[in-house]
C-alpha cells in the first residue's frame, strides 16, 4: 500500500528557476514516486505578472540550498525514501522536451492540479531522478510557493 507525503518550497520566479525538486538519492531506490497533487500560489504583494511553469523530469539534483524532508500525511508512516530539494544554486538537470505539465499563471491566481487515481505522474526508481517544478519564463520576480503531494 502506498504511503503519502507532502513537501513545499518557495523561490523567486525567472528564467529556468527551480522551486521544488522531488528526487531519490539512494543508489538503488526501492520505490517510484507518484505525484498526485500540485499547488502553486504567490504570497507576495499582488501584481499582474505572468509566469510559465513546467513540471519536468530531472536526472541530476544540481545543488540545493536546503532540503525539505517530506512530511508523512499519516503520522504512523515511516520516514520517506524520497526527498525534496529547494533553493537551488545550481539547477537540476532536466530531460529535454520532457515536461509533464505546463502551467501559465497570473501572480494573483492560485493553481491546483489533482490527478485522478491511477493517473499520477510517475518518477522512476533511479538514483537522483525525479520531478522538478520550475518557472521557465516570467514577467516578474515574485516568490512563488509550491506544494507537492506524492505517494511512494
Amino acid at each position, binding site marked *: 500500500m502506498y504511503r503519502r507525503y507532502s513537501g513545499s518550497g518557495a523561490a523567486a520566479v525567472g528564467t529556468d528557476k527551480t522551486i521544488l525538486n522531488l528526487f531519490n538519492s539512494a543508489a538503488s531506490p526501492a520505490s517510484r514516486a507518484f505525484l498526485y497533487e500540485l499547488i502553486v500560489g504567490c504570497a507576495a504583494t499582488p501584481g499582474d505578472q505572468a509566469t510559465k511553469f513546467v513540471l519536468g523530469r530531472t536526472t541530476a539534483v544540481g545543488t540545493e540550498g536546503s532540503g525539505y524532508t517530506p512530511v508523512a500525511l499519516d503520522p504512523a508512516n515511516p520516514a520517506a525514501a524520497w526527498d525534496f530539494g529547494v533553493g537551488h544554486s545550481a539547477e537540476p538537470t532536466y530531460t529535454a522536451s*520532457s515536461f*509533464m505539465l505546463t502551467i501559465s499563471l497570473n501572480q494573483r*491566481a492560485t*493553481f491546483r492540479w*489533482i*490527478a485522478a487515481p491511477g493517473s499520477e*505522474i*510517475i518518477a522512476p526508481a533511479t538514483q537522483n531522478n525525479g520531478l522538478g517544478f520550475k518557472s521557465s519564463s516570467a514577467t516578474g520576480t515574485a516568490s512563488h510557493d509550491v506544494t507537492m503531494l506524492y505517494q511512494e
Partner: protein
Amino acid sequence: MEGAISSSKPKGAIVVDGHQVADTVQCVHCGGHWVPVKGSGKTRGWCFNCHGPICGPGCCECVPFEKKLDLYEKGKIRRL
C-alpha cells in the same frame, strides 16, 4: 479555461482560485498531462495499441509507459 474541452475520462483536474476550470488527459506513452484545447494547433494523437491519447509526435512509437519505466530503471534506455 477558454477553449478547454472537458474529457469523458479525465485523468486530472485543474482548480484555479477554488473553481475547477479544466480537465487534463494523460499520454499513455510518457505519462505527461495536458489540457485539451480545441483549435490549439498542437498535434496530438491516439495509440490504438494502448487505447489512449498521446501527447505528440515525440511519443508516436508505441512503448507503453510502464514498459518504458522498466526499461529505464534497468538502464536499457537512456531517457523517458
